[in-house]
Structure formats: structure tokens, C-alpha cells
């Protein structure tokens, strides 16, 4: 690969308020997410992990610094261009309320493509649908699907447009552990078999252990990194960081 980095943050700060009441949610953070890897961002509540993800995914504006996604500097983009970037280059999986209730599972999966009036790669879409085992659920509406099925649809949607990077925000937070494991294996498979790049925010050591690499955040700063993690290693590292 020519460019190993799917997304890069350079000196990113996010500041709320002014003067005495100033809060630094992100304080001069620089980080790279490699193409074809599964990275987890961990940290206690208030550490800035969600804020980092929102800033890097173009969902929130940063106060300082720069972010590039697929070699595009997002700070220079206008709302319309940023929206197109999210649509074409980024996949999203949120913790809950991931799907549009009025659309079928199939329409939800193809939503970013449909919004872009883009047919997409049908072969790839079928492959994605097969990977998450949704073949016989395609005509159902979200209300007719279980929580796990809904998250699978969300993962499939994130993959459907072959994005440069997928951001997942606590994707298993609302699921029981069996279903959660299932979703995590799908994401792992998407990286291994389909060559996708995933960045996942989580506070759960078990979830994080599915990743190739974990980036730890504390008080808005990068607090450390862990490669090839196991749940035990993660717990040890977290103790070391003091929480």
C-alpha cells in the first residue's frame, strides 16, 4: 500500500468555552489510523475518545489542528463537500438508532449509495450482505428486526460503499454479549477478509481485544498504545493508566 494511513489527525484540539471556564476536550492530539487495520480507541468517560472520533469523521468541528481522510484535508471542506465525504468515503456504526425506520433493511444498507445516486458495486454489496447473514431479512423494516440484526444492517451499511474508513461508536453498547460478540466478529471479518479499515470507540476491554491496535486516551491526550491486545493485556494496561 502506498499510503498506510486511512485517517490522520495532526495536533487536533477541541476547546469548549473561554477563559476560566475553558474545557479542553482534546488537547493537541496527533494520531494515524492505518489502512486495512482494526483500531480501537479506549479511555474513561470524558477522556475525549468520542470527541476525537467525531472530529476525525467530520461530524464535529475541531478548534485547532488538521485531519485528513483518504488524503483529503477536511478542515478546508464546506458543509456540502464534507457531507459528500462522509457519504462516499466514511462508514458509520453508532451505538443505537442506526437505521431509518421507514426504510427496509436493504434500503438502509444501500442508503449512502442511494443518497449519492450511485449504483455501487453490486458484487461487493452481495458479499457484504452474505458476510453479515442478512439475505433473508432484506425486505424487513428496522422495527421487525432484533437489536443484533439491526446492528448487522448498520455494519453492512457502513461497508456497502467500500469506504476508506469506518468509524464505529460503541457498536455493541446496547447489545447482549452473545450478539455483541457476533457483531465484533463481523467487523473483524470485514478487516481480515474484505480488507476494510475500522476505527472503533469502546470502553469494553473484551470488545477492544478484537482490534489490531488500541489507542488509549486520557484527559484529552493520547495516553498510550497497545498492539495485538488480549482482554487481559488491556485490563493490565488500563490499571497501569490508573483507572
Amino acid at each position, binding site marked *: 500500500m502506498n499510503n498506510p494511513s486511512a485517517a490522520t489527525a495532526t495536533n487536533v484540539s477541541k476547546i469548549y468555552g473561554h477563559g476560566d471556564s475553558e474545557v479542553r476536550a482534546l488537547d493537541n492530539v496527533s494520531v494515524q489510523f492505518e489502512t486495512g487495520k482494526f483500531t480501537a480507541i479506549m479511555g474513561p468517560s470524558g477522556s475525549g475518545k468520542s470527541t476525537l472520533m467525531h472530529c476525525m469523521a467530520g461530524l464535529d468541528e475541531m478548534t485547532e489542528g488538521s485531519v485528513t481522510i483518504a488524503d483529503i484535508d477536511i478542515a478546508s471542506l464546506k458543509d*456540502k463537500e464534507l457531507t459528500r465525504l462522509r*457519504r462516499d468515503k466514511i462508514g458509520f456504526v453508532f*451505538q*443505537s438508532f442506526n437505521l*431509518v425506520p421507514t426504510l427496509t433493511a436493504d434500503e438502509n444498507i444501500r442508503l449512502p449509495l442511494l*443518497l449519492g445516486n450511485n449504483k455501487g458495486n453490486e458484487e461487493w454489496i452481495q458479499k457484504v450482505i452474505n458476510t453479515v447473514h442478512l439475505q433473508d431479512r432484506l425486505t424487513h423494516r428496522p422495527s421487525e428486526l432484533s437489536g443484533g440484526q439491526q446492528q448487522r444492517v448498520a455494519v453492512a451499511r457502513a461497508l456497502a460503499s467500500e469506504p476508506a474508513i469506518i468509524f464505529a*461508536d460503541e457498536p455493541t453498547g446496547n447489545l447482549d454479549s452473545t450478539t455483541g460478540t457476533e457483531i465484533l466478529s463481523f467487523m473483524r471479518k470485514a478487516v481480515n477478509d474484505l480488507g476494510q479499515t475500522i476505527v472503533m470507540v469502546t470502553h469494553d476491554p473484551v470488545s477492544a481485544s478484537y482490534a489490531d491496535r488500541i489507542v488509549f486516551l486520557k484527559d484529552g491526550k493520547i495516553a498510550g498504545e497497545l498492539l495485538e491486545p488480549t482482554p487481559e493485556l488491556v485490563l493490565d494496561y488500563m490499571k497501569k493508566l490508573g483507572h
Partner: protein
Amino acid sequence: MLRIALKGILGRKARLVLTSLAVILGTAFLSGTAVFSATLNRTFDNLFSDVFRNVDAYVRSTQVIEADFGAEERQRLPQEIIAIVEQVPGVADVQGDIQAFARIVGKNGEPLGAEGAGPPTFGSVGEEFKGALWTISEGKFPSNSTEVALDEASAKTGNYAIGDRVKIVAQAGSRVFTLVGIASYGDVRSPGGATFALFDLATAQEFLAKPGFIDNILVSGDGTLSDEELTEAIARAIPSSYKAETLTGAQITKETQDQIGSALSFFNILLSTFSYIALGVGSFVIYNVFSISAAQRQRENALLRAIGASKKQVTRAMLIESVVVGLFGSVIGLFAGIGLSKALSALLKAAGIDLPTGGLVVPSSAIANTIVVGLIVTVSSAWLPARRAGKVPPLAAMRETAIEVVALTRRRTIFGFVLIALGAVAIVAVTNGASNTWLGLGILLVFSGTITLGPVIARPVALLLGKPAERLRGVTGTMARQNSARNPKRTARTASPVLIGVALVTAVAALAASIRTQIDGVFTEQFKGDYAISTTARGFGGLSPSLADDINLLPEVERATGIGLLTVKIEDRGQYLTTINPATAEGVFDLGLTSGTYSDLTADTIFVSQQYVENNDSKLGDTISITLADAQVKTLSIAGIYEFDEIAGKYTVSRDLIKDSTVINFDLGVYIKMKSGVPEESARAILQSAVDKYGQGTLLSKREYIDSQSGQINQLLGLIYGLLFLSVIIAVVGIIITLLLSVFERQREIGLLRAVGMTKSQVRTTVRWESVITSLLGAVVGIVLGVGLGWVIVYALRDQGLSSFSVPISSTVSILIMAFVIGVLAAVYPAWRATRVNLLTAITTS
């Protein structure tokens, strides 16, 4: 609980404003029409008490013919009564008065005043008199047969100054006078927008009416007697053979005020009918807003229930909110209505009905009515949603989403169909001979049934109407289509105001189209000429009978005949007779004679319609006794029977009938057949110059004439559309409010869509199409109902001569286009709001 309710209201000011908006609009129209009516009544009341200020007694004939629609024709008095009244002790001054048709022609050659529409154009007497209705503000009163005075407003619009030559058209033809004075009526420049040309008595008699006769006598006392004593003295002095009555100044003032009052009351009833329609439409919006807001507050209410509030308390909190909204909205509506009353005069002015303006009158009854009605409508609209809010289970507090429960019960479907079926039965019963009163009930039942079924039909119809949006706009269209169908109750309630407005407009348009088709057919059948001279003046003034005679003398004209109306008494009831000139009618105006020929119609005979013969079992040679307006009795024998009674009515007489009476008669139309070979252009020029001599009437080709006859309905249509427009505004506001609340409710969904790549313009598209689908839903169902309603009304009027029903195709198409535009416009603000949804609050949990 009261405090919680009030805090709740203040905490959501935006919703207070939105909910109140519906109340404001509904009550504004209510108060607007009340203020408008009161102001109008007061203006006329003041005008007449001012005008009759110095009139102590008033003498007029007791002989009066009352015809349909409150029209009356009072007989004239012989002039010698003036001398009798002058001799009565206590009388200081006496003035014979005449009020008749006269039209002032402006300096530019255009007659003043709208022909037919708007206030009448009068000729009257203007002489120096203590109790005079007129006061000279410039110049002097006319004193000979060449002089005239004009009311101030006419002098101004006609661009006339003292010394100018003024052309005036009246019964005796057109004549030119010298303007010697400018007068005002009481304190106003022109009474109610009517135009007045004033002459000395002798000229007025000869030019406007009949020499030797007057309409009434104004008396001014010398102050030695009270008005009552004076009136009694005069009454005693006039021999009973004159058939005259004497009224006090106060009585004639009161009578005139009452006459105007009752003429205005029709108008007031029309206005308040439409204001209640608007309020009814508004109550749907209010109900909808409370329903949605109850649903959106489900969690909050459930929490209250969970911590120990009773069902009753939750319900009461919501009712308190509705009281606050009702009061707040009604008070603002009251003031908005006062502004609206001004707009209403402007609207009527635009529709050709010019009314005098005076100081605003805000009657306390209007204030009380507006606030009480506004409050009742608001609270009763909030009743059901409030009860539903109380029923929320405490467990709902734990639930994630708070979306309105969408349970469509079988009961509703059955109930709706039963209502429609009952309505249909009532209507079918009428078509099988039952009384027309059942129609009203039938219509009401069908309407209620449709509204009840609304939520049931909303989903399939919205999905159907949304198909093109999906085709056109891809996934944004799909979402709009699904959004409009996702909560059928809400969609139905939002579309209902549109439905009601559209149904009423369509019904009126269908009625109008049917009338137009009918008129078109009738005139095509009976009017055989090439040209017509038409005047839209009805019942008052018209074309001088000599116009037809003049045109008949033209060498290029084959034949021209005048048609007029005459009011007479038959068996003590006022009746209209059609007057024709039997010598010239044949081949131009076709009555469809089944027996007799035109030459059989003389001063001693009458033609009657086939219908009349059947109803009265009469035959040729039977006699009919009629009383003319001057009390002459004529016995006429039936000399002909005709088939076409749509224009002529039951009776047709020769204009020779009134040759020897004081009755004046105008033609309402002159039908002309040209000699063959006269080119169209020169025919027009020749006829036009004949018309110009009289300054009255419009020359029209056969086609133009028929179109203008059927086009007369358009003016009424314009007024009704204007009034219904207010309901449409309320419907639009209803759509806006619902969309705003829906957008608010779907914040997370919109945020998600924005996150995964929906652009702002796509967000707007989705909202816009949802709005358009909702609006079209109301329009389509409304059109179906409206066409049905129109048919029912046309059917009910079958006895009035409406035989054919026409579907108003062009109106229907324009309604659909308008519904589309309304949908687009209503979505503008909600769509903008939707693009302002914060991405992060939408997608982050907690």
C-alpha cells in the same frame, strides 16, 4: 399541578406560539368579520340619521309591490299633494323628491360607477329646502332644465368643475347639462359610493321619471308642533283617495336604516358563515397540535405518573395549558381581527364592491364572542388529547422513543363507513323524492364519515400519491413517501383542513360550472341575433327603450329588439314580467312559441310559459289580471304559450302595455340581427356609434354576449373563493405546524441521515415532498367529496332550472396545482429547521 402546567407552558414558548397560531387565525377571522359588520352598520346608520336630520315628516304612497329578494317598487304620488301639504299649519317648507336611475358620463366618456356591480347610480332632486338631504358645498342648486349638480365624489372622479358640460343618461335618453353645483349628502361626499346627479324638480320629473309625479315629499316643520303632531296633521289633510301615508322623520330614518341593515345582514351572515368554517378548519389544527404535543411529552407525563400524579392531574395539566393557549390566542386573534377587517374592505373593493369607510366599531359582543368561542374551541379540541395523555402508563417513562401510538381500530373503520352509508341513504332518498332538507344531513354525514375514515385512507392514498416522488427523487422521495404514511392519524388530521377547504371550493366551482353550462345552452337556443347590447344593471335602470328603436332604423340592421323586465302584482304577489317588442322579436329572441304568433301579443294580451299552463291548468283565451306599479289594473287574455322560459320566465307582455302609465321601463338587453353581407367591422362601428349616443350598455358579438352572461357568476365566485382563501391559510399553517413538530420528533433520524451523507438540500427535499404529499392527499379526497357535494347541490336546485351537472375540470386542475404549491410553500420553514438539526445531539446517546 397548576404550577407544573404553567411551568411546562413557559418552558416551551415555541410550542405555545405554534399552538396559539391556529387559535389566532381562527379567532381573527371571527372578530374581523364582526368588527367589519358592526363598522359597516354604524356607518350607514350615522349616514341616514345625518341625512334626515331636518326632515320632520315624510309622505309617500301606500301602494307598493313587493317582489322576490326584498325588492319593492313603490307607486308615485301626483304632484298636487305638495300643495295640500304646504297648507297644513306647522309646515315650514316642503320638497317633492325623486330618486331614479341616472348615469353620469365622465369627462373621458366613461360612465361613472361599475355597471351592475357596486353601488347604484341615482338621479334626484336638489333644490333649496330647509330639510334638504343635500347641501351645496360649491356653486348653487340647479334652477332650470339645463343645469345639474353632482355629488362631490362623482365630480371628482368624473373630473368635473363648475361650468363644465356633463353628459347624463337617464330614462328619457342622454342629455348634456351645465354643472352649476357640487353637493354633499349629509356630511359625506357620496352616500355609500352611489353617484348622484341632481336637478330641479321639474327637470327631474321630466328627465328621470314622469311629469306631474313625485316619489315622496319631505317636510320641514316650523317648530310649533312636535314631529308626531305635525305628521298627524299632514296625514289628516291628505284625502284618502291619494293612498298616501305620512311618517315622522324618526320613522323614515329608522326604516331606511333597517332596510340597509337587512340588506347588509345577508352579507354579514355570509361573512360569519365563512368565519365559522375557518374556525372549524382551525380546530383541526389545534386538535392536531395538542395530539402531537401530548405524544411528544409522553415520557414526561409518564414520569409524572410514575412519581405519583393521578390520571386526572395529568389530564388537567394539559387542559390548563389549552386554557392558557386559548386565552392567549383569542386575545391576539381579537386584535389581529381588527386589522383583518380593514383587509376585508380592501378585498371587497377588489371584488368590485365598494363600501364607505368610517371609524372602526368594536362592539363588546364581538370581543366577548371572539374570546369565548376561541376558548371553547381550543379547550374542546384539546379534550381528547388531554384524556389520552392522562392514560399514559407510568412504564412509558422508561421507553426509548415517544412516538404517537398508531393504532387504527376496526371500530373507526366501521363507524366511518356507517356514517357514509347513512349519508348516502339520505341523499338517495332525496333523489327518490324525499324533501331537500335531507340533503344537508346526508352531506354532513358523508363529510363526518370521510373525516372519521381519514386515518384509514391516509396511508394507502399517501403511498399512492408518493409514488411519483419516489420515481423522481430516489431515496429521498421514498423517505418522504414513507414519512407521510408512517403516522396516518397525524397525516389525516393535517390533511383534513385542506380537504374541507378544497371540498367547498370544488363544490362551488362545480355549481358555477353547471350554472354556466346551463346559461350558455339557454342563450344559444333563444338568442338568434348577431350582436347584443347588454347592461349588467339589474332591477335598477338599464337601457333606454328608444335605443332598440334607433338601431332598428339603421339600414344595415335587419332587426333589433329590446327585452326588459316589469314588476307587477298578480293576485297580490309581486311578479316579474318580461317585456318584449312583438313587432321586432321574431327571429332575434326566440320564445319557442307552441301556440300563437308574436303579432298576437298586444297591449291587451299576455304570453305564458308551457310550465305555467300545466301548473295552473289554463288555456288560450283565459284572462290574467295584473296591477301595475301605478295601481292601474289590466286584464290580459292569454294569446300565446311558449316553451323557453329560462330567460322569459312565466309571463311575457308587450311593452305597449305600459305606454299610458307612469311606470317606467328599461331594456336589459337589445338583440340585433344584421342584414346579410354587412362586414363585421363596419357592423360593429355602426352599432357602436348608436350605443355611444346613449352612453349606456356594451356592444357584444353573439359569442361575447353568451360568455358575458355565463361569466356573471364569476364575481360571486371570486368573493366566495376569497373567503375560502382564509381557510386555506389556516390549512397551510396546520401543515407548517405539523411538519415542524414532526421534524422536531425526528431529530435523531435526521441527524443520522446527515451523518451517513444526506446533504442539506436532500433533507429539504424530503420534508418538501412529505408536505406536498400531505397537501395533495387533502386536495384529492377534497375534490372527490367536493364534486359529490356539487352534484348534490345542483340536484337540489333542479327546481330552480338547473338541469345539467358539469364537473369543473379546469378548476380541479388548478386546485391540484395549488395544493402542490401550498405543499411546497408550507415546507419552506420546516425544511430549513430540519437542516439546522445538530448532528451530534442526534447521534450521541444519553
